[in-house]
């Protein structure tokens, strides 16, 4: 079989696209960068444990058939989540499935739905933070981006409803690449919650979701950011999240990574000015032969900033996970406080985790800690549960869930937490009888 040249195919496809729109210069620049970047192999340090071989076996540039959003609500509806929602199906905005309520000082628009004045602003801002020169998939996103979500919050405005962006892929996008984009700008002391959700219809699709998010968080502003993946086991996901923190600003991120065949998330946070705080919590639960790869890069470029990163993963069956957490303290970043913890549980002797916490410190007055652990289910705890009549299987599920429960409990949005609990419990077994005890969070109030 002749190997498919992913770059060549993508270039041909991107060049053929009608990029004459308002994002023309970003598209052209992206294409140029994409062409200049080598295709990552296992010898590329950042891709050492994630093989992109699958991309060379298949052409992901089929054209996407039209599809509508009806009947897909079940994939993304969150009970009691009163949100502004934007729904995209295979990269196409579906107004009929979306609901946006206006609030003064809050601008939420799709790129294509913007008027020409706003489009000019979008063109001037999108792509400014994304480091497309070093990330192949971000470069490709720049080359191809057409539509996306633009969020701009004015000074001192507290956004009342979470902004829920749903990206759905279906079989109509089979063997295609779907591009999605999000841009968030918070002015001074603004405050917003953005939920990016990635789901698929329950059908074979072999889609690549290529997504890029940029956030510019103004002085004293705060962004709560959620990324929830639960895609079909045949789909691939490549994403880059780029965050710029200004003076005393805050970025709080919750990432839940489930499903998918290959998933790669690069998340880059820049502490640019000083006094800013970054808090990231992530859970990844690959099973079967799924592969998940998280690369986080925290750049402490200014003094008095703090970072707290906590990631937990549970690998089942033959799955693989990669966690690479890099914290880079620049010479000017005195009084930095940074901590990173990554704990992993292996449920099978065929599952693997490659974890690498990295601290690079060039300032002398800092407090930093990092650690990674890999363990299996604790035999003593398992025996304790079994000695109380709980079956070995159920004990394993309770202990696995317990391993991530702490992170789940810390999700501040109740509605989302209640949605995630069963989703995560389902990861361990489809037998509801075995997970029923995990799903009664609020009964204490009874």
């Amino acid at each position, binding site marked *: 079989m002749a190997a498919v040249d992913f770059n060549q195919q993508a270039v041909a496809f991107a060049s053929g696209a009608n990029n004459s729109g308002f994002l023309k210069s970003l598209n052209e620049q992206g294409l140029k960068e994409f062409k200049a970047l080598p295709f990552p192999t296992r010898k590329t340090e950042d891709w050492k444990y994630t093989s992109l071989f699958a991309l060379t076996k298949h052409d992901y540039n089929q054209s996407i058939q039209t599809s509508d959003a009806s009947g897909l609500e079940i994939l993304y509806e969150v009970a009691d989540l009163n949100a502004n929602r934007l729904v995209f199906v295979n990269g196409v905005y579906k107004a009929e499935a979306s609901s946006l309520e206006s609030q003064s000082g809050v601008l939420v628009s799709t790129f294509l739905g913007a008027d020409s004045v706003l489009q000019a602003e979008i063109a001037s801002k999108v792509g400014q933070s994304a480091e497309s020169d070093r990330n192949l998939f971000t470069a490709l996103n720049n080359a191809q981006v057409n539509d996306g979500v633009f969020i701009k919050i004015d000074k001192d405005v507290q956004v009342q409803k979470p902004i829920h962006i749903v990206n759905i892929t279906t079989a109509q996008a089979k063997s295609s690449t779907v591009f999605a984009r999000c841009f968030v700008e918070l002015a001074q002391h603004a405050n917003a919650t953005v939920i990016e959700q990635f789901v698929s219809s329950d059908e074979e699709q072999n889609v690549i979701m290529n997504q890029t998010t940029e956030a510019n968080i103004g002085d004293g502003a705060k962004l709560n950011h959620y990324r929830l993946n639960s895609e079909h086991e045949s789909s691939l996901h490549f994403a880059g999240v780029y965050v710029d923190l200004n003076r005393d600003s805050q970025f709080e991120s919750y990432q839940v990574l489930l499903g998918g065949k290959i998933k790669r998330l690069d998340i880059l946070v820049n502490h640019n000015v000083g006094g800013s705080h970054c808090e990231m919590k992530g859970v990844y639960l690959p099973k079967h032969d799924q592969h998940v790869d998280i690369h986080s890069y925290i750049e402490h470029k200014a003094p008095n900033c703090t970072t707290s990163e906590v990631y937990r993963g549970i690998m089942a069956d033959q799955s693989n996970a990669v966690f690479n957490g890099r914290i880079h303290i620049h010479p000017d970043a005195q009084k930095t406080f940074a901590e990173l913890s990554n704990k992993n549980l292996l449920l099978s002797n065929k599952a693997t985790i490659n974890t690498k916490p990295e601290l690079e410190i060039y300032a002398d007055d800092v407090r930093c800690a990092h650690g990674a652990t890999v363990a299996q289910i*604790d*035999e*003593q*705890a398992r*025996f*304790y*549960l*079994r*000695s*109380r*009549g*709980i*079956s*070995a299987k*159920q004990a394993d599920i*309770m*202990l696995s*869930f*317990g*391993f*991530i*429960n*702490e992170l789940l409990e810390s999700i501040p949005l109740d509605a989302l937490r209640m949605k995630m609990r069963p989703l995560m419990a389902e990861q361990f077994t489809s037998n509801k009888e075995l997970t029923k*005890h*995990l799903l*009664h969070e609020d*009964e*204490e109030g*009874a």
Partner: protein
Amino acid sequence: MLSINNLQAKVEEKDILKGLSLDIKPGEIHAIMGPNGAGKSTLGNVLSGREGYEVTGGTVSFDGKNILEMDAEERAREGLFLAFQYPVEIPGVSNLEFLKASVDSIREHRGEEAMSSVEFLKLARAKCKLVNLDQSFLKRGVNEGFSGGEKKRNEIMQMMLLEPKLCILDETDSGLDIDALQVVAEGVNSQRDPNRSFIVVTHYQRLLDYIVPDFVHVLADGKIVKSGGKELALELEEKGYSWIEGEEA
């Protein structure tokens, strides 16, 4: 209720139990005393089905059933309960969730209907009160950050909820001050029942001031070397274990 006959067991290739025999009738309390290393904890672990303990000979019949063939969870469902010397801390699994899962599985085995969450919460709260544990302990991780006394009280609370036929208390007194000891003993005494038996494993006589046994057995080098009434414990306290070992020799 429980009949142990010539039980032999080893751990990591080392023989620990070397022909232990013991008969327990419903409602009886048997104390097992003995020096460190005699095999006291091994007995509890072997009876409750802990992995890593290999039974090399003898039989154990519980209510006429051969429990040595059962998994740990099956033994628990049959009505055997081990109160741990060192209860395990399990962060992330709430005590309430753990207790409900446990009670559900045991009720299911008995052919009883599952309790509703509300019903169960009421029951668990009532039991908390009985062992003097604040209700907030239900919400916390299993034994997570509990003091030694709180862990032991949590064990007794589990015993109350599961209503076993046979309770093995493995050095329940270790690490307890006298107040905690009294609370634990009261809990145990409140569970005394003509149909429920106890094996109280202890190194010291003081626990037996509060939980008064019907029989006292001395375990040394993997065997029961002496049996008697509650006065044997006092004698042991006075003369030390070397008295038994000397007598045996």
